[in-house]
C-alpha cells in the first residue's frame, strides 16, 4: 500500500535508508514528481516555512528594532524602480521599515496563527466527531445539530463574533497580550465542523466492524476503544482536510487582521501589513500593499495546490 510505504519510520536510524527508498518508490512520490506545478508549490511553501522559522537570520533588517529605523528612509520605493535604495529591495513603509523584512516576519505570524488554528480545530472536530459517531443517540443528535446550525453561517462571521465577544469581555489592557490566542480560538471555533462530520462518518462505519466488537467484548473502556482502535482508522481523510484548511485559516486570519480585529499592530501579520499599506494606496506608495498582498496570494495558492494534489493522490478511485 502506498500510504504505508510512504511513511518513513522516525527515530529508527537503521531503518531510514529503507524507508526513504520506499518513499521514492511510492505512488504518491511518483505523482508528485510528474506534476511541475505541485513541485513548485512545495518549494514555495518550504521557502515560506524556512524563512519564517529562521526569520531572525533571513530577514535583511529587523523591522521591530526601533534603533535601526530611520524615518528619513520612509517611503523608499523598491530598489528595482531605479529610485530606491539597494539596501531596501522592496522599498520601505511609512516608518522606514524594510518591506521585505516585514513580509518575512509577517508570514511567520500568518503561518503560526493559520497552523495553530487548524490544529486546534482538528483536535476539537476529531474528538467531537469520534464521540458523536461512537456514542450515538442524544449526544450525537446534539453535536450534529450544533454543527448544522454553525455550518449555515459563514466562517468569517463566527470568527468575528468570537473575537468580538473576547474583545468586549476582557479588560482593555489585556487585549494585545492575548490577541493572538483569541484569534487562534476564533478561527478554530469557525472551522471544526468539517472534521467532526468526516470523522463521525468514518466512525459510524468502523464501530460495527469485528475488531471494535472484539475490543468491546474483552471489556476495554469506550474512550480507549474510540481513541486507540477507531481513531487511527478514521484519520485518513483528515490529512487532506488539514492541508486545505490551513490555506483557508490563513485567509481568515488575514481578513480579520485587515479588518483591524486580528493580531495587534506590534506583531503584524500579512493582513496587518496590507491594512497599513492600504492607507498609502492613493499617495502612490503601492509597494507597501502590493508586495505583502502578493506574498499572501503565493502562500495560499501554493498550499491549496498541494492540498488538491494530496486529495487526488490519496483518492483510491482516481488511481
Amino acid at each position, binding site marked *: 500500500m502506498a500510504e504505508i510505504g510512504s511513511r518513513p519510520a522516525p527515530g529508527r536510524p537503521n531503518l531510514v535508508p529503507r524507508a526513504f527508498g520506499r518513499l521514492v518508490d511510492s505512488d504518491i512520490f511518483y505523482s508528485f514528481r510528474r506534476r511541475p506545478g505541485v513541485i513548485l508549490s512545495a518549494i514555495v511553501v518550504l521557502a515560506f516555512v524556512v524563512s519564517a522559522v529562521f526569520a531572525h537570520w533571513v530577514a535583511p533588517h529587523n523591522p521591530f528594532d526601533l534603533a535601526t529605523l530611520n524615518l528619513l528612509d520612509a517611503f523608499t520605493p523598491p530598489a528595482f524602480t531605479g529610485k530606491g535604495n539597494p539596501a531596501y529591495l522592496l522599498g520601505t513603509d511609512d516608518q522606514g521599515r524594510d518591506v521585505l523584512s516585514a513580509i518575512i516576519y509577517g508570514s511567520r505570524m500568518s503561518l503560526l496563527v493559520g497552523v495553530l488554528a487548524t490544529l486546534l480545530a482538528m483536535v476539537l472536530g476529531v474528538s467531537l466527531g469520534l464521540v458523536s459517531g461512537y456514542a450515538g443517540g442524544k449526544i450525537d443528535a446534539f453535536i450534529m445539530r450544533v454543527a448544522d*446550525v454553525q455550518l449555515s453561517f459563514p466562517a*468569517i462571521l463566527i470568527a468575528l463574533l468570537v473575537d468580538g465577544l473576547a474583545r*468586549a469581555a476582557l479588560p482593555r489592557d489585556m487585549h494585545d497580550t492575548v490577541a493572538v490566542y483569541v484569534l487562534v480560538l476564533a478561527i478554530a471555533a469557525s472551522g471544526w465542523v468539517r472534521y467532526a462530520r468526516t470523522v463521525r462518518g468514518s466512525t459510524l462505519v468502523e464501530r460495527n466492524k469485528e475488531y471494535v466488537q472484539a475490543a468491546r467484548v474483552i471489556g476495554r473502556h469506550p474512550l480507549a476503544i474510540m481513541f486507540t482502535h477507531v481513531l487511527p482508522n478514521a484519520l485518513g481523510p483528515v490529512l487532506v482536510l488539514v492541508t486545505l484548511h490551513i490555506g483557508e485559516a490563513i485567509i481568515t486570519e488575514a481578513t480579520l487582521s485587515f479588518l483591524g*480585529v486580528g493580531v495587534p499592530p506590534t506583531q503584524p501579520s500579512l493582513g496587518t501589513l496590507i491594512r497599513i499599506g492600504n492607507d498609502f494606496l492613493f499617495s502612490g506608495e503601492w509597494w507597501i500593499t502590493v508586495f505583502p498582498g502578493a506574498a499572501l496570494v503565493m502562500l495560499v495558492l501554493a498550499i491549496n495546490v498541494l492540498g488538491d494534489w494530496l486529495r487526488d493522490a490519496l483518492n483510491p478511485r482516481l488511481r
Partner: protein
Amino acid sequence: MIAFVLRRLLQAVMVMLVVGAIAFSLFNFVGDPVALMLPPEATQADRDAMRQSLGLDRPFYVQFATFLGNALQGNFGISLRLGRPVSALIAERLPATLELAFTASLIALLVGIPVGVYTALRRDSFLSRAMLTTSLVGVSLPNFLIGIFLILIFAVWLGLLPSFGRGDTVQLGFWSTGLLTTSGLKALVLPAITLGFYPLTLVMRLVRSEMMEVLRTDYIKFARARGLSERTVNFGHALKNTLVPVITIVGLQLGGIIAFAIITETVFQWPGMGLLFIQAVQFADVPVMAAYLCLIGLIFVVINLAVDLLYYVVDPRLRVERTAPAGAH
C-alpha cells in the same frame, strides 16, 4: 406535511432564541452599562437608582424576556459610540448593503451562467481552461485583496471609477438609493465586482458540472437524434434543467453575500450595515453588535427555512423519509 413544517418552524425559532441569547449575554457579560452611563463621581445611591431604572436589579430570566420583547419590536437601545437609537442606524444603512448584495448576486448570475455553459460545451478550448484557472486563483485570493487590487488599477492608476463611498443618493421614502444617479452607479461598480467574484466562480463551476452531467443523459441524446438544432438542445433542454440547483445555491449564498459585505464595505468605505458592525466590534459597541447579530441570524434562518420548505414541495422523496420519524415521536 404540517408536522414537517411545524418541526422546521420550531427549529428556526430555537436557532433565533440561541442567537438572541448570545446577543443578550453580550449585554450582560460585557462591561457594566451603569458605569458606562454615569459620571465617575456618581454615588452608590445614584448607581442603585440607575440600576433600578434600567431594570438590571430584576432576575436574569425577566431581563432576557424583556430583551426578547424589545428585540421583537426592533428596539435594541442606543449605540454607545454614536449616541443614536440602533434601529434608526440600521434602517439608514440597510438599503446600501441590500443594493450592493443584490447587484453582486446579479453579476454572479449574469456572468457565471454563460461562462459555466461555455466551459461545459467547449471543454478543451484554451478559453475554457483559462477561465477555470482564473476561478481557481480567484478562490485562493482573499476578498479584500481583490478589492484593493481593483482600487489600485481602476481608481488610482487609471482614475476611471471612484474608490470609496456611495456617490449621490436619491431618497425614495425611507429608502435611499444610489441606483438612479450616475455617480451612484459608478461608485457601485468596483464594490459589486469584488463582492460578486466568489459567488461568480461558484455559479460557474456549478453550472459547468451540472451541464456536463445533463448533456450525458438519454433525453439529450434523444433530442439530438430527433434532429433538433444544437442551440435548442443546449439551451432549451439542457440549460433549463441545470438551473434548479443553481438558483437554490445562489439563494443560500445570498445570506453569505450579505455577511461577506462586511469586508467589501470596509475596503470601499461603503456606508452599509457591515461597516457599522465592524466599527462596533472595534469600539465594543454592544447594542449595535447585538442588533446586527440578530438581523443576520434572522436573514439566515429565513433563507434556510424557505429553501427547506421549497425542497419539501419539489422533492417527494423527503416527504417519505421525514414523516416516519415524526410519527414515531
